[in-house]
């Protein structure tokens, strides 16, 4: 007997290149905000799920254990989950199964990343995720595989850099309305095209920044939801999937793993026409082309159609299918796991009408968030309804 699970509160820190706070302190701030917003204390929490990406960023092995005091895990059933960049949606999925299973009535989900610890650049830590025998001797930069995926996507559908840049323009503009944003800005397509080339076809403004930050969410079961709120947002579908580690053996132009995860989540949420039934979407956007790639993976349009929707304004905050109304990773920042704040938490805030200046018009009822990780191979998807 699966219990219905509702989101009743969320919190986050500001996102910046470097915060003074330690990882634990960031976790506390996000968690405190989530608890306060739901009018709860730590005593009300039964279980805690921590989401955090590779230990190498914070530079603390077993950082889940390091963070637990600040994440409210003291003397509670506590576990860390980790699916690389996919963690921001996967951690709340893990929280969902804690509650849906009937194991706990209240589950706190906390995500954290302190990417400033590793210097001169977190890329040095990324180097260790490659295969040590066949990839690392070539001295790769992680940016290469995204550049190669973007190139393959552009090639498959004849997409221009201009069309892709429109995503960066939109998301950075949306982020101007986010109180925690690191890189909200009014920029133009030319600004993106003229920014420094990092690894062609990726320019500097095509990429989200590394950030420090934390986020938290409170999930409760149908049995206790009325004790806490009359404005819950329900988790109606979850899905996740992973593709082969042999990334050089895959056609990179379509994210199969996202499509599989989306189908799993849509089936659970009884969605048979995603484009019509979904009102607002937060696809994972660490790069501008990824928003397009993921919209296609989420089956919200045909392959190669996402750039057209973007050009026509459909994905603007006041468009027919608002995408990344938060400002996304491109505008708000990219503290890997803690991007839960701009994906999962944002859909909660949007569907409960709490998104303030970022609020999508028209009383959205159904929203989808998605994250992406590991070696371009992992997708996690959540469908929520108010």
């Amino acid at each position, binding site marked *: 007997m699966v219990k219905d699970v509702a989101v009743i509160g969320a919190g986050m820190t500001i996102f910046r290149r470097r915060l003074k706070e330690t990882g634990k302190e960031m976790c506390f701030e996000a968690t405190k905000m989530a608890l306060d*917003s739901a009018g709860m204390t730590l005593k009300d929490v039964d279980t805690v799920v921590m989401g955090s990406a590779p230990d190498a960023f914070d*530079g603390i092995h077993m950082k889940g254990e390091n963070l637990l005091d600040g994440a409210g895990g003291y003397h509670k059933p506590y576990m860390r989950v980790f699916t690389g960049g996919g963690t921001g949606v996967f951690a709340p999925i893990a929280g969902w199964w804690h509650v849906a299973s009937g194991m706990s009535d209240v589950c706190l989900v906390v995500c954290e990343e302190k990417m400033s610890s590793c210097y001169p650049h977190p890329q*040095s830590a990324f*180097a260790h995720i490659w295969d040590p025998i066949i990839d690392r001797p*070539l001295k790769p930069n992680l940016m290469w595989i995204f550049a190669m995926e973007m190139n393959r996507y552009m090639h498959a559908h004849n997409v221009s850099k201009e069309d892709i840049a429109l995503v960066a323009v939109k998301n950075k503009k949306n982020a101007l309305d986010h109180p925690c944003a690191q890189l909200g800005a009014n920029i133009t397509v030319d600004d993106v095209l003229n920014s420094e080339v990092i690894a062609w076809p990726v320019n500097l403004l095509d990429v989200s920044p590394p950030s420090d930050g934390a986020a938290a969410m409170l999930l409760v079961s149908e049995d206790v939801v009325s004790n806490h709120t009359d404005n819950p947002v329900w988790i109606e579908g979850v899905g996740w999937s992973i593709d082969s580690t042999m990334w050089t053996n895959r056609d990179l132009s379509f994210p199969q793993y996202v499509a599989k995860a989306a189908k799993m989540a849509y089936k659970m949420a009884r969605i048979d026409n995603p484009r019509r039934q979904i009102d607002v979407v937060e696809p994972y956007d660490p790069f501008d082309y990824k928003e397009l790639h993921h919209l296609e993976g989420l089956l919200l349009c045909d392959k190669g159609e996402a750039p057209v929707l973007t050009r026509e304004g459909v994905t603007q905050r006041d468009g027919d299918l608002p995408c990344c109304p938060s400002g996304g990773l491109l505008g708000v920042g990219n503290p890997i796991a803690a991007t839960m704040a701009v994906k999962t938490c944002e859909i909660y805030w949007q569907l409960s009408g709490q998104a303030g200046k970022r609020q999508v018009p028209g009383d959205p009822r159904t929203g989808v968030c998605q994250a992406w990780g590991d070696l371009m191979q992992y997708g996690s998807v959540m469908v929520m309804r108010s």
Partner: protein
Amino acid sequence: MTENIKKFYGEELSRKQISDGKITIVEHSPKVKYAWSCGEAMSRFLNELKEGKLIGRKCNKCNRILFPPRMFCEQCFKATNEWVYIKDTGRIMTYSISYVDTHARRIKKPILVGVIAMDGASKNMGIMHYFDEVKSDKIKIDMRVKAVWKRKEEREGAITDIKYFKPLGE
């Protein structure tokens, strides 16, 4: 969220505050060394590279020739069956022109890097490698390329025994 919350926490630090010694920090560089066992498939693969050859593994169930080789087929989830030599020519599946090195340091002369689907292996069976002897504005997806090997006495059984791939010029 935003309407009810008066203060969002987080105190931004600048590089200057750190270099000026205004706040306390701790620095550390872990010194860890590893020796990764290559396993069956990679050991043979590296030994063959030293001989100037490329080798894959065939799965008799799906009939794919897997490259780089592995001892199991991840799709059929069974042991692969035989060793198959493949060619050192192939097709560019994708590429990038990189102005950053592995530590994200800026470099003047870009690195051309990409995925090459190898001839003689199944569809999309590629490896990552460098390209050279081609201008960055001439490189294209689907371009045919060939491996340029190090001299035999310089080869050590490493992926870098291939120096780079160059256009086949057909």
